[in-house]
């Protein structure tokens, strides 16, 4: 008889129905959520680009003394001044020779180029600040400033948000109204003002803009954390835990923090791009670091003096601008990708 045999046995049929899939060893080791997030990161082309950019900048920052040796051997984490080639007003072309008091040659220079004396790889600005040194050491500045601002805004926002969410009542009301008052200010203008106020007090440097940006930046996180904690508190599993008598502290550690706070911290850390832009903007206006500090915003402000002849002296603008845009784009790409991966899950919709 032309009776076709069933293609699957009953055991296989049941197995297909239950959608049992193979779980790799890595997934077992990392846990399903972490594995899912990592897999999402490494399969999305945009996030791979973003991650590579971030890694690249960390590598450059670490290798800064090798790529652009500092003029003096003793320097704090970031060199205080970009080395200058004299004080002449006309910017020099990329590739022009370093004439007066060049810093020590990097070890790879002779091998790579066969020359004996430093050149200005990216040219100089008016006033002869070497752009290459500014860009390379500027990576350290950008990372330092970005991480500092983000960490501080997160910290303050988390404290305010959790206090408001946990205690509720009048403390919640006061804290949230205070948040509203701070939010009534246009953040960049207010940070500009506070930075201008703090500069005579603290002196020119990275601190006035950092403090100013943190002061007018914590509010978003306070609101988010408060909202997250309040919503997690209402969830069924938290209520169930309280009903069976689990101690508050345990509930916080095992339910509230992983579901409310971890995701926010992860997404917040990718806001570093926006922080670096804000800092560069303040630096660009001249409020911030002293002249000559390796800081991209300041390098770009050098281009302001040459606007009519900007196509002639293009290197003053292009090199720091490309560095800044790539840096920020790396963090933004990762942030976008992570937000896509984590968001549907947080809202409970399918992938």
């Amino acid at each position, binding site marked *: 008889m032309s009776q076709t045999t069933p293609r699957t046995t009953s055991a296989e049929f049941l197995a297909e129905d239950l959608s049992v899939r193979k779980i790799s060893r890595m997934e077992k080791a990392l846990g399903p959520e972490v594995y899912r997030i990592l897999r999402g990161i490494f399969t999305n082309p*945009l996030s791979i680009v973003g991650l590579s950019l971030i890694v690249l900048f960390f590598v450059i920052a670490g290798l800064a003394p090798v790529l652009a040796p500092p003029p003096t051997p003793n320097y704090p984490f970031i060199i205080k001044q970009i080395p200058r080639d004299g004080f002449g007003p006309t910017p020099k072309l990329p590739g022009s020779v370093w004439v007066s008091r060049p810093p020590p040659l990097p070890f790879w220079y002779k091998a790579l180029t066969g020359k004996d004396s430093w050149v200005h790889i990216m040219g100089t600005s008016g006033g002869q600040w070497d752009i290459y040194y500014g860009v390379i050491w500027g990576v350290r500045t950008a990372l330092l400033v970005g991480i500092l601002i983000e960490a501080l805004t997160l910290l303050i926002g988390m404290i305010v948000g959790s206090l408001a969410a946990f205690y509720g009542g009048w403390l919640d009301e006061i804290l949230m*109204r*205070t948040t*509203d*008052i*701070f939010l*009534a*200010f*246009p953040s*960049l*203008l*207010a940070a*500009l*003002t*506070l*930075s*201008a*106020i*703090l*500069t*005579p*007090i603290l002196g020119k440097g990275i601190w006035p803009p950092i403090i100013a940006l943190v002061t007018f930046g914590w509010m978003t996180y306070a609101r988010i954390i408060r909202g997250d904690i309040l919503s997690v508190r209402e969830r069924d599993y938290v209520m169930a835990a309280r009903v069976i008598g689990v101690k508050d502290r345990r509930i916080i550690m095992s339910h509230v923090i992983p579901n409310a706070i971890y995701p926010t911290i992860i997404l917040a850390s990718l806001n570093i*791009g926006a922080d670096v*832009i804000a800092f*560069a*903007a303040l630096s*660009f*206006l*001249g*409020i911030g670091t002293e002249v000559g500090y390796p800081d991209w915003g300041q390098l*770009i402000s050098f*281009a*302001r003096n040459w*606007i*009519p*002849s*900007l*196509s*002639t002296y*293009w290197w003053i*603008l292009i090199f720091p*601008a490309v560095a*800044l*845009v790539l840096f*920020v*784009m790396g963090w*933004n*790409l990762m942030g*976008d990708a992570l937000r896509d991966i984590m968001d549907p899950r947080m809202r409970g919709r399918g992938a």
Partner: protein
Amino acid sequence: MTNYIIRRLLIIPFILFGVTVLIFGMLSFLSPQERSALYVRDIPHNDAAMEGIIRRYGLDDPIPVQYWRWLVGKKDSVSGTVVGGILRGDFGYSRSQSQPVVDLIRRRFPATVELALYSIIPIIGIGVWLGIKAAVNHNKLIDQVARVFAILAHSLPSFILGLLLLMLLYARNGWFPPGRVSDWANAVILNPLLWRNYTYLITVDSLLNGRVDIFLDSMRHLFLPVITLSLISWATYLRVTRSSMLETLRQEYVTTARAKGLKEKDVVSGHARPNALIPVATLGGLTVAALLGGAVFTETIFDFPGIGQAAGASAAQLDVITVLSLTLLSGLILVVANLVVDVLYAYLDPRVRLG
């Protein structure tokens, strides 16, 4: 609905009070010499005159007393008149711009308004259109391109974009210069015999005065700042509109409309789009407020004489009184805009006021 509005209105005085307290808190970081700019035009040169000023205007008095005086003004012991007081409209003197702050605002606000006016239409119009296109073609090429563009525009700060545009479209061939008008046009505008100011917006006034050449000149100067502001804002509008539209297209009433047999474009324009645009309306209100508060970096780069440029220049010279007053002004605009936006949102989305 009125309940909602009343509740929102009641909170406003509290917020305004908090804003003034915060601003004055920042003011009190200044030394009395700097704070004398609230009352006196020039810094007195010797210590004796400084002491006199401090005593005359009570710049050493306790902070709450000074706060009250900063709000309502002080009776000048020498001349007997009342000076100062932001509620009387006296914001002090701008030492970096050499004029009273109120005059500075009055002179420069029209420029900012003009820039805001010409920017808001392309920003909202094109930004929303891009977002809807991207959402309707979800995950197709247009969507991917739009998303990459959004990320790129998010990573490009306005001052870099402005400088790039200047480099490409001005430094090479001088097509779109910085500034608000050319020098020859400015000479005409400043001449009361040749020019009458009706609205203080040069594009409008030039047509009212019958000077088409000045109209074209000012449009030419507006082109690059408007493009700079627009490109950056398009990223935000694209993202918000796109995600709002995607969310709306998932709703059940959209499926119902499709099942009823409506053409897809009618579903989109009649059902999905009006509901998706509600969050965009609030974003629009906030964008207007931000533009009116002065786009500091765009105006600075393009040398556009608005209040944003004044804020940037005075901040760079550490003239705190000026930049603080401009921040206060911007804050007020933002508070009003937030109220309008909240009421608008409640009007458009009944779930907010009834829920």
